């Protein structure tokens, strides 16, 4: 039998108020274990709202969300689901609870009632994984944005979740902080098999995913590998989305009559294609 999906959303509808239009309007989505999925979409397309369904912060008005086959609407599974699906938000300042880094990383485990000795070993492991072990006795406000965001990630992975949802987790960071956070996330995905769902505005980040889901007005409009999705430059532009700069360049060159491949999404690929043309 096929391994059960990490998250399975079936015909999910949600609106914040009955008189408002649906923020999530009939979404079907399957996320397999170990996958790295990027969710793209213009502001207000419902991608954040959808992601909050994945750990039962919001419950669907119609349709179901299954996390490892547990229905998010069943209250007895609530904390199992939240432990399995961790979430990191945009602003690191607003998700750190304690005044010392290691105490904050321990917060979730304290809530779960893990014995103190085990908390110690698990937070040390989580801080190592997130690369912040050397800051463990510092106060969070003394850290940079990227470091704070990695503290937040460590606080979530200390729960040993199977899935990590990043709700624009790199949006407030400078390029160096963003690169470090992305490196941490790729490391968690590749080396520890943690499923990642990354909601992002940065196309270069989305290009690193296994699969991209594009949303518009509460619906999934495009789905596929980064190469498949980014080759549809015109459709993405019509949804007010960008493509990676390398893709943009290749597209412009093709429009100018050069023989550039349609599916180059990284600078590396673009450079190679150009080198071939020039040779």
């Amino acid at each position, binding site marked *: 039998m096929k391994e059960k999906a990490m998250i399975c959303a079936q015909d999910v509808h949600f609106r914040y108020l009955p008189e408002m239009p649906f923020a999530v309007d009939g979404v079907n989505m399957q996320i397999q274990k170990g996958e790295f999925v990027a969710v793209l979409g213009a502001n207000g397309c419902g991608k954040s709202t959808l992601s909050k369904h994945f*750990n039962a*912060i919001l419950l669907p008005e119609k349709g179901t969300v299954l996390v490892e086959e547990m229905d998010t609407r069943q209250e007895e599974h609530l*904390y199992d689901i*939240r*432990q399995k699906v*961790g*979430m990191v*938000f945009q*602003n690191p*300042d*607003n*998700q*750190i*609870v*304690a*005044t*010392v880094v*290691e*105490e904050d990383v*321990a*917060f*979730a*485990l*304290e*809530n*779960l*009632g*893990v*014995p*103190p000795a085990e*908390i*110690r070993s698990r*937070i040390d492991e989580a801080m190592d994984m997130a690369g912040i072990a050397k800051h463990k006795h510092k*106060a*969070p*406000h003394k850290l940079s944005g990227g470091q704070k965001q990695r503290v*937040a990630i460590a*606080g*979530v992975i200390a*729960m040993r979740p199977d899935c990590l949802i990043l709700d624009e987790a790199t949006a407030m960071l400078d390029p160096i902080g963003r690169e470090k956070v992305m490196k941490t996330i790729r490391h968690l995905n590749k080396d520890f098999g943690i499923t990642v769902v990354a909601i992002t505005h940065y196309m270069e980040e989305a290009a690193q995913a296994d699969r991209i889901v594009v949303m518009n007005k509460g619906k999934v409009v495009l789905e596929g590998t980064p190469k498949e999705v980014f080759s549809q430059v015109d459709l993405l532009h019509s949804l007010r989305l960008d493509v990676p700069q390398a893709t943009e360049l290749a597209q412009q060159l093709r429009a100018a009559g050069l023989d550039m491949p349609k599916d180059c999404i990284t600078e590396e690929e673009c450079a190679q294609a150009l080198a071939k043309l020039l040779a």
Partner: protein
Amino acid sequence: MIRDITIGQHFPGNSLVHRLDPRMKIILTMGYIVLLFLAANPGGLVLATVLLGILYRVAKIPLKLIVKSLKPILPIILFTVVLNLFFITGQGSPLFEMGFIKVYIEGVRYAVLMGVRIVLLIAGTSLLTYTTSPISLTDAIERLLSPLAKLHCPVHELAMVMTIALRFIPTLIEETDKIMNAQKARGAQLDSGTLQQRMKAMVPILIPLFVSAFRRADELAMAMECRCYRGGEGRTRLKQLRLTSTDWASFGVCMVIFAGIWATNLLFTGL
């Protein structure tokens, strides 16, 4: 400038005073304060000063920090001393008389004792905050008050509120700084004008600050929910507080000294 403010000044260290159980430290500090006001004998206060001096040496806290922590309350000390000096009336003839002001020997004695008491009170409580991190302080308060939880007092919640407040003070100070600069850039005059004008000028700072604080609170609540927060029930702690033999020994030594300080009351009371 505004960012230099530190709350709950903590000076990390590894001395005996630092390592003492925070619950013990709170209780001993409270005992010390009560004792300061019980000790009517100058000898007792001298002993109390010596004890505190030794503890400061053990904790390796520079003495100039005490001076710094006393500075803001200097007016209060002076006020108390002067009041006591002028308003305590004693038997016999006044030492010194000028119009309606009469200073008696008892007044001088009382004023000096009061001044010393307040200085020791501040220095003693400062030692507690210098040697204990805010988080272990709130932790200790939670444990000390835990019997009240049986009476349905929200002890865990109060401790959580204190922790979050401590965590957000630097964040909100930074934010206030940013908003002040943003309003200044729009031509707000914050430092000039009459008192009324200056108070009015604070409104465009306070409103954005409040709005942002509420938004932060909302997001923090969601982040806490995502990390399975469900109140104090069934919660474990990373750092367990356990009373060691060193704690009890220190407690014993302090108690003996406290008794000594109190016993000076039984000795001579004259001066």
